[in-house]
């Protein structure tokens, strides 16, 4: 489903990837681990084509970074749900409208939008918050809204960038359990984290480590 082939990528003053390769199959749950600033977010950005590799190719579904047309990128992103580190909830609209946004973008019908938002909000325990604004919610609640928004279009891939970064350990664990449940329904899941406690608790998952500008599969010691 996702192939990174000999990727080279660098920002002006820092090389992030050098000849990095990896394959991720449909339905996998992958933790991406590594020190802060090593390139976890960049790896995710490469997958949703927010940045382009200097050389090498990224293939997601039918899209190839080397041949993709700019006008195709919005359609590629509609197949991916993204949970951002800073949530990226819009404070100028209520929770209903935040969750519904990807459906409006994908030109959904009003009635179906309403039904789908209510469905996902009830699954994630957000029904009572639909009429209030993001700034009135706690960090954990905002993260649930972000996950609801990412899942509303039933994407084939869910990317979560440090989804537990700003949460207390109990709420963090709840969020990862929620992501695990989503993965069990068949959605491929990639979660970047530097929280090893969480990774240890889900030791059966695949762990990709970023080190020395490359990607390695690692196994935790029992």
């Amino acid at each position: 489903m996702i192939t990174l082939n000999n990727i080279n990528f660098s920002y002006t003053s820092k090389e992030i990837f050098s000849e990095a390769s990896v394959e991720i199959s449909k339905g996998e749950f992958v933790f991406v681990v590594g020190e802060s600033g090593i390139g976890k977010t960049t790896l995710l950005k490469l997958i949703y084509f927010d940045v382009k590799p200097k050389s090498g190719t990224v293939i997601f579904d039918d899209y190839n970074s080397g041949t993709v047309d700019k006008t195709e990128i919005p359609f590629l992103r509609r197949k991916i749900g993204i949970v951002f580190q800073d949530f990226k909830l819009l404070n100028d609209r209520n929770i209903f409208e935040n969750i519904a946004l990807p459906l409006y973008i994908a030109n959904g019908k009003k009635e179906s939008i309403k039904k789908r938002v209510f469905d996902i909000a009830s699954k994630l325990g957000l029904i009572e918050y639909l009429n209030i604004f993001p700034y009135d919610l706690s960090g954990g609640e905002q993260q649930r809204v972000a996950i609801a928004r990412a899942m509303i279009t039933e994407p084939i891939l869910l990317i979560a960038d440090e989804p537990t970064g700003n949460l207390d350990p109990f709420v963090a664990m709840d969020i990862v359990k929620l992501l695990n449940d989503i993965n069990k329904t068949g959605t491929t899941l990639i979660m970047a984290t530097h929280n090893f406690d969480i990774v240890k608790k889900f030791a059966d998952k695949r762990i990709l480590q970023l080190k020395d500008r490359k990607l390695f599969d690692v196994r935790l010691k029992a």
Partner: protein
Amino acid sequence: MKFGYLYKEAIRGFANAKLSAFASVITITLSLILIAIYFLFTVNSNRIIKNIKDKVEIEVFLIDDIKTDELNTLKEKLKAVGGVKNIVYVSKDDAAKIFSEEFGSDMLDIYDYNPLPASYKINLYDEYKTIDRINRIKAQITNLPQISDVQFPEKNLELIESKTTGFLFINLIIMVVITISSIFLVSNTIRLIISSRSKIIETFKLLGAKRSFIMIPFLIEGFIQGLAGSILAISALYLFFTVFVSKFESTDLHFELLGTDIVLYVVLIGVTLGIAGSYFSVLKYLKVQN
């Protein structure tokens, strides 16, 4: 794509940045007032120049004992000269009448005969109303035996010719300055609004929004701002000209003021400024954002 949703986004944009939107409307208003005043200044200056030029004619004075058949032959000869629009015959009696109308006393009260000569007044096409061309015409006809003298208002033409070139040059500079500063001011103000909503643009993009989905609400906002700016500018100009016209209405100068066409131009330019300002600002932002 649902226009209703995009329109709602535009209105939400206004609500999010009320002060910036107000600043943008005021900027458009001021730019339009400048453009309209400049436009009216140009139109009216050209009108004054044309007015003076319209009065420029060649007076061909005839000898006293000219015969009727010679008059017709001469008229045909004069018509054959290039650039003649029309020719009017002014008899000795007509000349005396004009004199008494203009000076308020009868010629025959001063002299016991009418000393004024009959004449042909030649009106030329506008492009022939230059000192050079009239002098060429003058040279062609001045030696004809039935003609005693040929005159035209050389001084007036000299004035128009010497001032028009400078006027056109200054006009061009003013036009360039006003246009550039208007576009600069409006697009900068709009860019401020757009950069304040960069997070929204970025989120939309990452959630799979097409460029048009991001762009259209800003274009609607630009349109509304342009429309509001033009309505304000027209109102301000209307108030100004109400006072201005009352001062000048007793003179014989007929100024071009806020006609329907100018109101339409102002609205068109205002809306274009608003939409173009939004378009280029968002475009620039989308490019920066990759």
